[in-house]
């Protein structure tokens, strides 16, 4: 079959990229070879638009065992243990087929983690939907949430944290970012680099079918009005098989048999075999007649490009094939030796005794085109002064904010996720970060997912700094030492310079914040082309973060606990209302620059809060973010079922601030602490002993309302009705 320009275009390859293939091969590729090149060089697999910028991210720290480049990042958590984690997008398939798209997103990220020898102990997710009243939104929310739950609940990995927000910019492209965290012995980590000439290549898991062919290519182009026609490219998940695969893989990894292992994710057998060969600097030869297939008559093209789920590729030590055979058959899974490692440096694919593809490994995996796409920085927005933003009655504004899409309780979502299985969940969803104990030990991991896209749209650099800083705060607020992050960079079409400008700004902001907070990026994923008919999503550099708790009994939660506890605000309040939720939800405006960041202050304040928690001196702690101080106080009151009396501190602020700016401003690096009265003096002394930690006494815990002096009182019942009512009303009424 002659490769025409039309066939090249159908594979998502640009004419100059095809010329590059011809140069590498010195001949015309056949269709199988073209298909292999097209997926390996897709944006999704090759990071061809993003790679040169991703190099700017800090990826090292003394506790980083393995940074980006493997299936997931690995960090040392002491006692010979490692935490292994990564976040990944499944945006395009989830829009087209929300249940299966989201479910297979969870399945894929789980495999990235247990591929490395880790037992998955927690899942997280970050979801961005369109306007709540958009005709598709409810269908997408219910499908995505059911899909995430359907998969995670069945495999028995608790879904412990996440976030969810709504904005019309996501009407045509939702974001579904899923994260898995696993633990392993630090000296028993498995990597993808193939080694050992002659070693067998073993296929395990589900059979290969015709589903998901060209999924990676789909995720590398923008949508148009006919995107729903792409439904056949979405894979179908089987969490039951995944559960068996987890158990079988961890079982064989405990034996001395596995040289290398790689899951078959995007681009299936193609990318797993090419990447293993490339990382090991070896060749690989596969006989497709031995691949377990679900259907008869599958061609080499279909087998190589299928994205059937729940499959893994392993290189075993020679002579250990029987170990794989025994373990995988015990778990009722397919297992087949489908090839061997060679010294040829080539990927050779055979079927029916014919060579179907014979390609050099290097160009496929490492010599994908790299683009330095032109970009224009996002123009800075005007900074809003607090007095530029009109005030509205405080009580009404608070209630409206509590019942607004981004602040309203997401209980309707997380109660559909089994967040307790494995029995180690210490802090459940709904707080600043989840806390998951490490297999019954005192030690625990704190986990959070954070990003504020409206800030990133206003100022990609500052917004991305804020995403990292908020993750740092959320971990600190439960008492965890922030260790590292994974990221999921979701943007529109990078071929548009303004989108590329958002991307570059966000990467550079993330780099600055991660370096300043010693909070390296150890894994991640880039999702571009989240765009429909030229309308891109808000820039969304999603952060997933992991912190370490040495002793789970020394953690803090957000709920008020004891009447008489003294309330403190850590950090400075200047009344930052630009790009705030107050501005958007109360005044219907989305203008203004986002809040200033001060990473040195983030670090000082975070360290102060963590030290107080470790000393057992505080009752509750909450970071101040969306909706500002008053929303933070309301969330603490609702979580604890106990109110508070707030002093009119805004009236005697050193520089005058209107009440609404003080109470709803989203200034960064702030926390609210509730401190038992006997410890109040000690907490104040501890703040004074550190320079640059402003600590302001703002009130006292008690009662059934938030009482704000002359501004009135807002009852817990009224707040709860708004906060808990919004999402169930959206999903189940009308």
């Amino acid at each position, binding site marked *: 079959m002659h490769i025409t320009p039309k066939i090249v275009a159908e594979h998502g390859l640009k004419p100059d990229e095809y010329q590059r293939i011809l140069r590498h091969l010195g001949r015309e590729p056949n269709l199988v070879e073209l298909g292999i090149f097209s997926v390996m060089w897709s944006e999704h697999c090759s990071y061809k638009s993003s790679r040169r910028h991703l190099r700017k991210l800090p990826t090292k720290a003394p506790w980083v065992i393995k940074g980006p480049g493997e299936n997931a990042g690995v960090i040392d958590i002491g006692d010979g243990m490692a935490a292994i984690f990564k976040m990944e997008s499944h945006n395009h398939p989830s829009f087209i087929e929300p249940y299966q798209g989201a479910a297979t997103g969870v399945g894929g990220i789980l495999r990235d983690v247990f591929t490395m020898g880790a037992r998955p102990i927690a899942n997280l997710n970050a979801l961005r939907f369109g306007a709540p009243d958009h005709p598709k939104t409810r269908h997408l929310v219910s499908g995505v949430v059911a899909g995430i739950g359907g998969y995670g609940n069945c495999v028995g990995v608790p879904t412990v944290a996440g976030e969810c927000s709504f904005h019309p910019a996501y009407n045509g492209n939702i974001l579904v970012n899923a994260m898995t965290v696993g633990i392993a012995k630090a000296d028993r980590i498995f990597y993808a680099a193939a080694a050992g000439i002659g070693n067998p290549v073993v296929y395990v898991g589900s059979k290969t079918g015709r589903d998901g062919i060209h999924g990676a290519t789909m995720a590398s182009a923008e949508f148009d009005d006919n995107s729903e026609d792409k439904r056949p490219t979405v894979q179908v998940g089987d969490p039951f098989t995944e559960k*068996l695969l987890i158990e079988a893989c961890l079982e064989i990894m405990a034996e001395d048999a596995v040289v290398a292992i790689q899951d078959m994710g995007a681009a299936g057998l193609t990318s797993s075999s090419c990447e293993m060969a490339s990382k090991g600097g070896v060749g690989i030869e596969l006989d497709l007649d031995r691949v377990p297939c679900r259907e008869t008559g599958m061609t080499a093209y279909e087998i190589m490009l299928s994205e059937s789920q729940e499959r893994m590729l392993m290189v075993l030590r020679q002579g250990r094939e029987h170990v794989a055979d025994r373990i995988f058959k015990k778990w009722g899974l397919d297992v087949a030796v489908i090839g061997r490692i060679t010294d040829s440096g080539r990927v050779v694919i055979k079927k029916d005794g014919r060579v179907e593809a014979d390609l050099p490994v290097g160009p496929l995996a490492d010599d994908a085109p790299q683009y330095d796409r032109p970009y224009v920085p996002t123009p800075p927005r005007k900074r809003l002064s607090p007095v530029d933003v009109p005030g509205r009655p405080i009580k009404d504004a608070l209630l409206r904010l509590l019942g607004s899409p981004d602040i309203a309780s997401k209980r309707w979502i997380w109660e559909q996720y089994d967040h307790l*299985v494995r029995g180690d969940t210490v802090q459940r969803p709904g707080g600043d970060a989840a806390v998951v104990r490490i297999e019954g030990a005192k030690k625990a991991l704190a986990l959070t997912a954070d990003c504020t896209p409206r800030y990133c749209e206003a100022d990609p650099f500052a917004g991305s700094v804020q995403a990292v800083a908020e993750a740092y705060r959320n971990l600190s607020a439960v008492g965890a030492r922030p260790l590292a992050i994974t990221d999921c960079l979701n943007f529109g079409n990078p071929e548009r310079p303004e989108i590329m400008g958002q991307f570059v700004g966000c990467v550079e902001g993330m780099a600055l914040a991660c370096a300043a907070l010693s909070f390296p990026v150890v894994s991640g994923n880039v999702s571009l082309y989240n765009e429909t008919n030229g309308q891109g999503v808000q820039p969304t550099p999603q952060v997933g973060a992991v912190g370490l708790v040495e002793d789970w009994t020394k953690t803090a939660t957000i709920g008020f606990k004891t009447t008489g506890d003294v309330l403190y605000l850590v950090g400075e309040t200047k009344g930052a209302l630009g790009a705030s939720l107050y501005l958007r939800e109360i005044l219907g405006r989305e203008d203004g620059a986002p809040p200033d960041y001060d990473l040195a202050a983030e670090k000082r304040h975070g360290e102060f809060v963590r030290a107080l928690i470790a000393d057992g001196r505080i009752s509750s702690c909450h970071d101040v973010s969306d909706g500002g101080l008053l929303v933070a106080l309301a969330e603490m009151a609702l979580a604890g079922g106990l109110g508070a009396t707030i002093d009119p501190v805004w009236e005697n602020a050193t520089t005058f601030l209107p009440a609404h700016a003080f109470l709803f401003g989203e200034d960064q690096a702030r926390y609210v602490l509730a401190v038992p009265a006997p410890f109040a003096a000690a907490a104040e002394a501890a703040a004074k002993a550190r320079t640059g930690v402003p600590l302001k006494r703002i009130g006292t815990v008690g009662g059934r309302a938030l009482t704000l002096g002359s501004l009135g009182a807002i009852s817990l019942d009224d707040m709860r009705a708004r906060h808990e009512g919004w999402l169930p009303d959206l999903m189940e009424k009308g």
Partner: protein
Amino acid sequence: MKAAVVLFPGSNRERDMAVALERATGEPPAIVWHGDTTLPKVDLIVLPGGFSYGDYLRSGAIAARAPIMRSVVEAAERGVAVLGVCNGFQILTEAGLLPGVLLPNAHGKFACKNVALRVETSQTVFTGGYEAGQTISVPIAHHDGNYFADDETLARLEGEGRVAFRYVGGNPNGSIRDIAGIYNETKTVLGLMPHPEDATDPSQGGTDGLGLFTGLANALS
């Protein structure tokens, strides 16, 4: 007390259960493979939660026909205590050891949260650690927990005091008469939807579930 936990393909709360049993008895349970045909000599057999066989066909339907289940049924008939939690409860109804069925939740969604349960009687090997009428808080995590039986069966269950636990202060799944757990005729087989094993340590936010395991350990040691 010696205990065995049966592991089916797709079980996922066997670890939670093993940890809870060890907390109560100081001894880890034996883990028994679904494909085996014999059980070790034990005082308690537990069918744990999870999604055995992916809930394919009907939740619990395929597991009820696993090779090990013949031995479980025989042991139950001899009077060995059998506890089925969540998917284990579903398997017990499918295996005919308990009457009734567990339908999908009335609201159609998976539900994971703490619920309040009333312990209906303390006079069984399972509930000696509680007072009759006591309310305990334990989590649920299920999609198919909506217990249903015909009127005649319900009348018999109620008349014979075989309703073990009832939801109070809100029914999370639509189960008939707020039933959360039931016994067989001899009250030596218990099936319940909630997960007492996930409420056995302060780190889990409560220890109300521990009484079930300490009660069993006292009754069966």
